[in-house]
């Protein structure tokens, strides 16, 4: 016999206190009605200052990325123009093709300085680069999560042969040395989708990156989901649904899925920054985005080469990335804490 309190503790979102409170004071029922796990989480989350700050930072980044065109039009520059060649700015670059002036050529015109060699505006490059990085990462994460969730649920729920074969497929993808695969096959994949005559449109490049990262990115999530589903499908509410005649599809969707939202969300928040880093890595080794698409990874690659001559060029994307990743990781932790009443803080 398990005491109810105990059973409660094992649930992911059990909150003992409101329950007891509501029972003791029936008058308060209205007030507490409809306090969903989501709301509880929100409550908990709101009290977590780190979480709120990181969420604000993350939202800020996304907003800036989304508003990049607006911001840059207000600011009056874009990331594509070679300002060093414009007659208005005759002395942007010196003999060595380095920005003139200190701090990477920071000035009222170029807030974060100018790019060496080509003399483009760093500030807008950063803004637009953030778009590439963030949007790509969001898509990759989304696809990987979806695939992982679907395959994981199928694998976990149906078990048996299905599980076995899906498990082997997962193994297969898992066994690819990821970084190597990227380097070896990004060009191949790009080549497969573009006729050799055309300029590879940026969107195709993006699609290729997304595809490769997607193919190699879903396995972790699938495993996680599978293991959660394996334990969930033994729970009695699944049997209850079966007794009422629900189809497997309905059970998976309506009964199981809502219960694995938390781990999916948490894992997802961890995947996003790591996708950003992977995309940056691809550009860093020269197989990701090419000029003139603004991209953090390539800015890094260039910056790492000239950090002594022009530290500012490394500094801005570097710091922006560190801040974003940090904020997102912290956010992930906070989300987990908020969902899990067990973690004492």
């Amino acid at each position, binding site marked *: 016999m398990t005491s109810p309190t105990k059973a409660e503790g094992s649930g992911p979102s059990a909150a003992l206190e409101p329950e007891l409170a509501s029972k003791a004071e029936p008058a308060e029922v209205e007030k507490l009605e409809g306090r969903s796990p989501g709301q509880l989480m929100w409550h908990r989350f709101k009290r977590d200052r780190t979480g709120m700050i990181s969420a604000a930072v993350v939202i800020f980044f996304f907003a800036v990325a989304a508003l990049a065109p607006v911001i840059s039009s207000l600011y009056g520059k874009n990331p594509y123009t070679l300002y060093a060649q414009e007659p208005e700015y005759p002395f942007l670059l010196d003999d060595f093709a380095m920005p003139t002036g200190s701090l990477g050529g920071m000035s009222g015109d170029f807030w974060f300085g100018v790019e060496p060699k080509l003399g483009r505006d760093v500030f807008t490059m950063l803004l637009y680069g953030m778009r590439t990085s963030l949007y790509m990462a969001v898509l990759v994460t989304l696809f990987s999560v979806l695939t992982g969730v679907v395959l994981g649920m199928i694998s976990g729920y149906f078990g048996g042969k299905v599980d076995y074969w899906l498990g*082997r497929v997962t*193994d*297969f993808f*898992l*066994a*690819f*040395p*990821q*970084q*190597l*695969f990227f*380097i*070896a*096959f990004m060009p*191949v994949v790009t*080549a*497969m989708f573009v006729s*050799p005559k055309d300029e590879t449109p940026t969107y195709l490049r993006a699609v290729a990156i997304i595809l490769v990262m997607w193919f190699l990115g879903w396995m972790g999530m699938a495993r996680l989901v599978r293991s959660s589903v394996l334990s969930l499908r033994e729970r009695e509410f699944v049997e209850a649904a079966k007794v009422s005649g629900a189809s497997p599809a309905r059970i998976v969707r309506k009964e199981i899925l809502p219960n694995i939202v938390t781990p999916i969300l948490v894992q997802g928040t961890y995947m996003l*920054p790591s996708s950003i*880093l992977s995309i*940056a*890595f691809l550009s*860093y*080794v020269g197989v990701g985005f090419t000029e003139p698409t603004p991209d953090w990874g390539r800015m*890094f*690659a260039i910056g*790492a080469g000239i*950090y*002594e001559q022009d530290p500012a060029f*490394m500094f801005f994307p*570097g710091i922006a*990335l*560190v*801040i974003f*990743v*940090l904020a997102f*990781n*912290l956010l992930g*932790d906070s989300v987990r804490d908020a969902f899990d009443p*067990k*973690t004492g803080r």
Partner: protein
Amino acid sequence: MLQFLIRRLSGAVVIMFLIGAFTFFLFYSIPQDFAQLACGKNCSPENIAVIRENLGLDKPITTQFWEFMMGIVSGRDFPQGHCAAPCLGVSFDSGDFVWDSIMDRFPLTLSLTVGGLVIFLLFGLGTGLLAAWKRGTAVDKIVSGASMVLSSFQIYFLGPIVLGLLVYQTGWFENPKYVPFTDNPGSWFVGMLIPWAVMATIFTAQYTRMARSTMIEQLQEEHVRTARAKGMRQRYVFFRYAWRGSLIPIVTIIGMDLSALLSGAVVTEFTFDLAGIGRLAVEGSLTKDLPLTMGVMLFGAFFILILNIVVDLAYAYIDPRVRLA
């Protein structure tokens, strides 16, 4: 146990075969002429024909693939000589036996991995355990905070900065370089120190977070409480009962990191100008050197698969409830 090993190993062989096939045919799926790539400045049709024959490109693709795979099992003969059993073919580009190239690079990769592993395990788990032991205190907050910040860094960001500070600006350290351990353990150690340190810094942070959270989770387990109820010392409870329970996730991550590192720490190698497996792979794929790329891929896959099996064995060792199947 034996059954488990046989079953898993044969599964690994199948997966390696599939990965090989996948790599091979993907390489051929884009129109490119390896012979033309391999020929240098004067690419006359005659020279291309010679190269094509030398590289065995005149045979049908399936034959090439079959010969490649068979070479792994039984070795092959090349104009350069006999290529013994795990023969991964001959590099298109350099004409070396791929296996030899890999073996040549492997000591460095191994040193990098093992040294880094030791450091980041020691520090990562150490600080993680410390934070868990002192949870809620200032020590915990500092450790967790620092690890969080550090784990957001990247090697290609941190590496150049560290090099700049410690090597070029101050000259406190020599440039990282690899001296075989057998030649001179001292120089081996000194040469690898900076790469280890930078690599370890980033990994350490991850392990700190991991160790801390699993330990805290474990400390709430009922059987840990039972151990305390028996009057066992807090340290004993911490390091025996809670620690044992934390091992599974930790071992999982170690296995993943280890296989990733052994199959080539690309960024680290490039950042520090070291020639390991990762560099070999990049060279191979940039020059479209099919045998080299295949070889390194398979070599990496081998580690990933083997370490997976090892990790599963470790699970069974750590947790007697886990049955090997």
